[in-house]
């Protein structure tokens, strides 16, 4: 089944260095494929290159060498403006610290992503309400982020990331700022979306969480691929 899946993300000998050609390599000659509808956890200690990998996939940063193709787009060939357009339609990003816009209410925080993508108003509102309902925060649509709990904020961030039906949902330490219970709830929500075909790439340093929820675990060490394993499905539907 795994081999039959279509490749969505493909790193080929990708290197990302900081501080010039002789600088430190955050990713070092990485080759990796992620297929559609996969739930992949990127693991590794601090400085191993997890966030850098996500930034490259999101087109927030450029690879220093090698290639990276995401959903058929060779990101090295795209301009800044094209990368922005690519992000609008193909990428959803969830941050550790949520990064909601504090002067917009919950609904507007979700809608702004749709508006930037040029989506129609009615369809976007419907989609936003669907997502917020699914994430259990419909009663908070007019609230401002400052009044939400961490878990609620992260749910809003997930809704915002998914409003444009992205090809890939990237989550950088999505549970890092949450207590364990809320963190599990967030991971379950991500799994739920993955089970409906959403490709998810989660960077985390929490091995337990990764083993429990991710179908595939990619381990990085000093920017290199250290391990790439598939988890086994447990009776409760989680992985081991």
């Amino acid at each position, binding site marked *: 089944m795994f081999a039959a899946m279509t490749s969505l993300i493909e790193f080929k000998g990708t290197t990302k260095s900081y501080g010039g050609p002789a600088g430190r390599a955050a990713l070092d000659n990485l080759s990796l494929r992620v297929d559609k509808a996969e739930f992949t956890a990127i693991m590794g200690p601090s400085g191993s290159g997890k*966030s850098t990998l996500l*930034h490259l996939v*999101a087109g*927030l*940063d450029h690879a220093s060498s090698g290639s990276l193709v995401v959903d058929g787009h060779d990101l090295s060939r795209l301009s*800044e*403006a094209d990368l*922005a*357009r*690519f*992000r*609008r*339609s193909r*990428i959803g*990003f969830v*941050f550790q*610290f949520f*990064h*909601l*816009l*504090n*002067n*917009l*209410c919950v609904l*507007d925080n979700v*809608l*702004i*992503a749709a*508006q*930037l*993508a040029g989506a129609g*108003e009615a369809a976007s509102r419907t989609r936003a309400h669907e997502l917020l309902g699914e994430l259990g925060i419909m009663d908070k649509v007019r609230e*401002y982020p400052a009044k939400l709990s961490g878990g609620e904020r992260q749910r809003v961030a997930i809704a*915002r990331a998914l409003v444009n039906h992205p090809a890939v949902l990237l989550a950088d330490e999505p549970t890092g700022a949450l207590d364990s219970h809320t963190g599990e709830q967030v991971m379950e929500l991500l799994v739920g979306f993955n089970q409906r075909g959403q490709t998810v790439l989660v960077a985390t340093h929490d091995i337990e969480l990764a083993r429990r929820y991710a179908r595939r675990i990619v381990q990085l060490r000093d920017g290199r691929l250290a391990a790439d394993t598939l988890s086994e499905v447990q009776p409760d539907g989680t992985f081991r």
Partner: protein
Amino acid sequence: MKPVLTKALADVRRYRLQTLVVFLISGLAMAVGAMGGTLLTQSSSPYDRAFSELAGPHLVVVFDGRAVTRDQVAATASVRGITSAAGPWVVASVPFENGARHLSVSSSFSSQTALSVVGRDSPGGSLDRIDVVRGRWVQADGEIVVTRAFADQNSLSVGDRLTALSTTLKPTLTVVGEAVDVDPRPDRAWVSTNQVTSLIPAGAAPLYQMSYRISLASSKSEILVAVSSVKAAVPAGAVLGYISYLDSRDSFNFTASLVLTFLLAFTAMALASVAVIVSNVVTGAVLASYREIGIVKALGFTPRQVVGAFLLTMLIPALLAGLIAIPVGALASKPLLDQAAAAMSLPAPSPVVPGVDLLALIIGLGIVAAAATVPAWRAGRLSAVAAITSGTAPSGRWSTSLHGRIGWWRLPRSLVIGIGDAFARPVRGGLTAVAILVGVATLVFATGLYAAIIKFNDLFSPASGGGYQVTVSRFGGYSDAETLRQLQGRPETAAVIGHKEVEGEIPGQPDPISLSVFRGDSARLGYQLAEGRWLAGPGEAVIGSVFNPNHWVVGQTINLRVGGKLLQLRIVGSCYCFLVAAMDWASYSVALPEAEPADYLVQLRPGTDANAYVRQVSASEPDFLFPQVNQSNNGGGIEGILDGMVAALALILGVIAGLGVFNALLLTMRERARDIAVLKTLGMTPRQVSTMVTASAVALGAAGALLGVPAGVVLYNYLIEAMAHVSNFNVSTSVIIAEINPMQLVAVGVAGVLVAILGASLPARWAARTSVVNVLNLE
């Protein structure tokens, strides 16, 4: 104090852009302040200063050499009431040419073809000194010193040779110097005492000039008492005329008050702009340093020390800026001082006025300190715990509601967010808009004032109403009939109006008045009427609306003694002109039937080249006719002065307003760096980010411009009244208040928005280039 200074110096170094903004705006404002102050003090009483420096005389009297001897004139120095005297000097009236070019000079709305040449061997003395501004004083026969204004108007320089046309010998004199004194009339020159006699036509008697200081000279009546004393000391009819220093001084008032009001308004506006921008900078610094304020308070800073640190952070760059900008501002006033002095034919004053410079520094620093105090005081009152725990200042909800009101789906998102951000911090947005408002209002005021000056000159310059193009004077006994034949025989001549300035006496009043007498169709001269009509025949007079010392009114009949005969004239009109009174030749010839015009005002047919006409007339009778093109006098250089000032000050206010926008958007951008990074993550392109920041600037600029234009119009109407009041102007201001062209108002408003966009260009560029990864990693 030391920790406060340490913290302030560290902040100055750390917040380099903020320091640079404070340095630039306070420097610009203090430069304007120093320039304004210098101009204010050095040109506020140009005549009084020159009068003091050059020991100007209270009274200059001209005597007729046919009726009085030189010794009799010299003896008037001991007349009662005279405290000191200089002279007598022999005076000759001499027309000159340079090569084939006849020389003339224009002063306040009149033109002179002959110079009063004074025989004087030294420019110094205890009274009525002359300042040689170029070259040197005359040392021998064959040399001449002319007034700077005469040299400038005729493009003469030291070394040029002038031919005197007053005698058949036509001696040639070399210009050895240019000079100024307290007499504003430019039609004067000086030669050696020996030389001057050779310039007097054979058979003509010399004129003598004597200068006096008198014990009581504060009013016109006191001057008249002195004139009467002098008259009583010489044979009857010996005094031909006199000039009082009060008359000369009054002629400067209008110009000086225009320039000064203008400068005062600009200086006040520039300082107001600086106050709001500094206040903005400090408010922004307080918001940006929220956590840090908490930390330093936790370390033991008292609220007063926090305030002190913020004030010092602003005052250090402001002080440095002042030390550099104030001398620059003072020096920048020099060209304007020179220009103003030249326009008034007075010596140029020094631009160095230490008291003014010090005052500019104190006021500048005071405004910076005052503007910084309120936000710094707020910083001092912050709760240390709240500041540390929240980390950032609470943001207002204004932008949210604004977003909602604009509606998400009607405008591009980047525009909506940008417009909302403009007033996300209402105080910051408001202060920035005020900076633009001040700039726009000042420009509107300047535009209006400029239009008023143009209208004023149009009203008071006969040439602008069609008037005449050439003035011809005749010399050497050339007859009136011959002159008329010469001029009217030319196909280019449309009309010739004879003209003569004569003196008239009002029975019972010692002070004679000047009368303009016209022969021919003088209505063609195009004087614009304030009331009534122009002269239509004998027994009529038209009065000027500016100089009306006797408070005559249209419809009144006045008695004037002219040439010993009493004339009864009915005032039929009043004109926008500097005439005291005008009458028709038919009225004048009743008194003096043999009189002839002194000069001829020629109206040319359309399409005629006035210069070519002048050359042809001059060539026809080079020894007797002295034609010159009538120069439309537009205010004696005031436009040039104001032009320069408007350009320089508009630029400075524009830069200050632009820096205000730059500063506000920079602060907003810093505060919103994380949000911008998030928006970029969500797919906002660099261009959209740039549009978003620029939209904020456009919103601020539009708000400032929309309020600034009406504010400028109100300011203009108010200040023009104030200026008229200051200058004791007799004409109703409703006459000279010009409607400002609506397109100009639109242009000034658009300029305000453009300045805002310009100020936003760098922050917009930086925002567009912000690295998402860097910003979010820093979080």
